[in-house]
Structure formats: structure tokens, C-alpha cells
């Protein structure tokens, strides 16, 4: 079973000096936080904020690469969590065939946002992450911890 998730935003995690991509389902009952690096967060933030950089950034180029041959991103699925690492798959449609490509969630999400493709998560992954500890930590985040993306 998979659930469609929406990219709700990015937060700065001052304790780990990293960024968190927050995915939530439509009913806002499930949440999936994914820790990513600074440049990966930047790639996602540019899409969320509809920023068009003067030159194509890596994921803009990635999309151009697929566009050049009319390959389409159908969907992205966060498939697995193993040893603190999320795994994801990008589903492509090209000449009436479907292809599944292994990717880091940060790349998959950055590409999905640029392709207007839906993001899904395996329910097993969502369940694994909804620990009380994490939710508590997120609740205790102060507003100034948000939006510190300075890249």
C-alpha cells in the first residue's frame, strides 16, 4: 500500500546542521520527515518557492535531459527505510514503456516537484517513522528554526 504525500516544506535542523523535508498525507494524519543535505534542500526549496535561477540548476538540467527525448516522470515513491537511509524509485514513461530508476529521495522529490509528478510513500515507511519521540521533537521546534535555508 502506498499513500500520496505532499511536500509541506523544509526545516533547518540545528542539531544535525541538516535540513528536513516534511512530507504529509492529504488528511495530515501521517508525516514523513526526511533529512537531506544543504544543496539537496536548496534544490527542493527552489521548486517550492517557484524560484527560476538564471542558469539551470542540477535538477532543472535533469528534467531537460528527460524532456529532450520526451521521457516523463509519472511518479516518485519513497519505498524503504533501511539503516537510517530512505530509498526511493522514480517511475518514468518513455515511448509507451515504463522504467523504474533507483534514486535518493532528495533527487526524486526535487525532480517530482519540477515535473508536477505525485510523490508517494510506502505505508511501511510512514509507520516506521511516526515515533512519538520525533513528533515531540518537531513540536518543540521554534518558529525561528524554520526557513533558515541560506543557500
Amino acid at each position, binding site marked *: 500500500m502506498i499513500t500520496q504525500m505532499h511536500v509541506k516544506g523544509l526545516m533547518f535542523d540545528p542539531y544535525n546542521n541538516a535540513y528536513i523535508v516534511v512530507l504529509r498525507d492529504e488528511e495530515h494524519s501521517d508525516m514523513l520527515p526526511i533529512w537531506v543535505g544543504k544543496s539537496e534542500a536548496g534544490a527542493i526549496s527552489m521548486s517550492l518557492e517557484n524560484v527560476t535561477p538564471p542558469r539551470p540548476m542540477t535538477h532543472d*538540467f535533469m528534467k531537460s535531459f528527460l524532456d529532450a527525448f520526451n521521457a516523463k516522470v509519472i511518479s516518485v515513491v519513497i519505498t524503504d527505510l533501511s539503516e537510517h537511509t530512505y530509498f526511493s524509485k522514480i517511475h518514468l514513461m518513455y515511448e509507451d514503456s515504463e522504467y523504474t530508476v533507483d534514486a535518493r529521495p532528495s533527487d526524486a522529490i526535487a525532480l517530482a516537484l519540477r515535473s508536477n509528478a505525485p510523490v508517494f510513500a510506502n505505508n511501511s515507511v510512514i509507520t516506521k517513522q511516526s515515533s512519538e519521540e520525533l513528533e515531540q521533537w518537531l513540536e518543540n521546534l521554534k518558529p525561528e528554526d524554520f526557513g533558515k535555508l541560506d543557500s
Partner: protein
Amino acid sequence: MSAVDRPKEQDLVEYRVERILEEANTDTRIVVLARQDGVPDTFPIWVGAAEGNAIKLALDTMITPRPMSHDLIKSFAEHLNITIQRVVISDVKNSTYYAMVHVANKGVERTIDARPSDAISLALRAPCPIYVTQDVLKRRSTTNLDASKDIGAPEVQET
């Protein structure tokens, strides 16, 4: 020459990534390209730290546990049978270098606009040759210099 013009073969000079230099106390890296046709010349391009690191990973043939962004682009190419033929540093405008990535599939060729860092990162992984046009070589050291740099130009103008 506009970025979409396709240079003739004789207008292309092959370069290879020689090394990545770190600039002390800055968030930039310098990609040093070395000319391959016997003429001694190096061609530096200023890039961001993340872009420089992506190139360095490929240069050092480091295998990362998970695919990095340019590994993913290569993976797309492999899945869809797209050949990455060559990358060309094709233009310099306002102290910014432009690159084109030449790709082909079933005899259909396409060129894709890219920052040099993405083009070079992909070229090292493909692998495919890296060229600089004679036009860019002529113009790099005269009118298109960023005043703050001794040589070369950044691929994205600093704001």
C-alpha cells in the same frame, strides 16, 4: 555566437579535468581543465562547493553508497538507451560560462543547455569527452573576465 549554435568539429578543443582546487575560506571550487592536443593550457572554471564536490567524486572514481544526482542522470541515460556523446563549453556571457550536453538516441541528436559543472560532472561519469570552443578560448581572457578573478570565469555570476 549564441549558445544554441552547434560548433563545427574543428572549432572544438578537447580538455580533461585535471584537478579540483579549493579556495580557502570560500564556498567555491575551481575546476581546472587541461588542454589535450599538446598545446599547454589550463582552463579554470569557478563553481560552487557542492558542484565541485560532485565533480571530485567522479574524478576520484569514488563509489557512493547511494546514487548522487549525476549518477541518477547517467542511470536515466542507461535505462532509456540515451548516449551522452560529448559536452561542450560553448559560450561565455557576463562572466558566466555556458555548456551544452550532446545526447543521442536512435539516431536522434539533442543538445541540452547546462551549467559547465553539471556538464563536466556528467561527462566524467558517462564517460565522454569535454570540449571548449575556439570562440570561448579566444574570448575568455579579454572582455569577459570577472574583475575579481585573475583567470577564467564563474559559471554562475555571483550576486
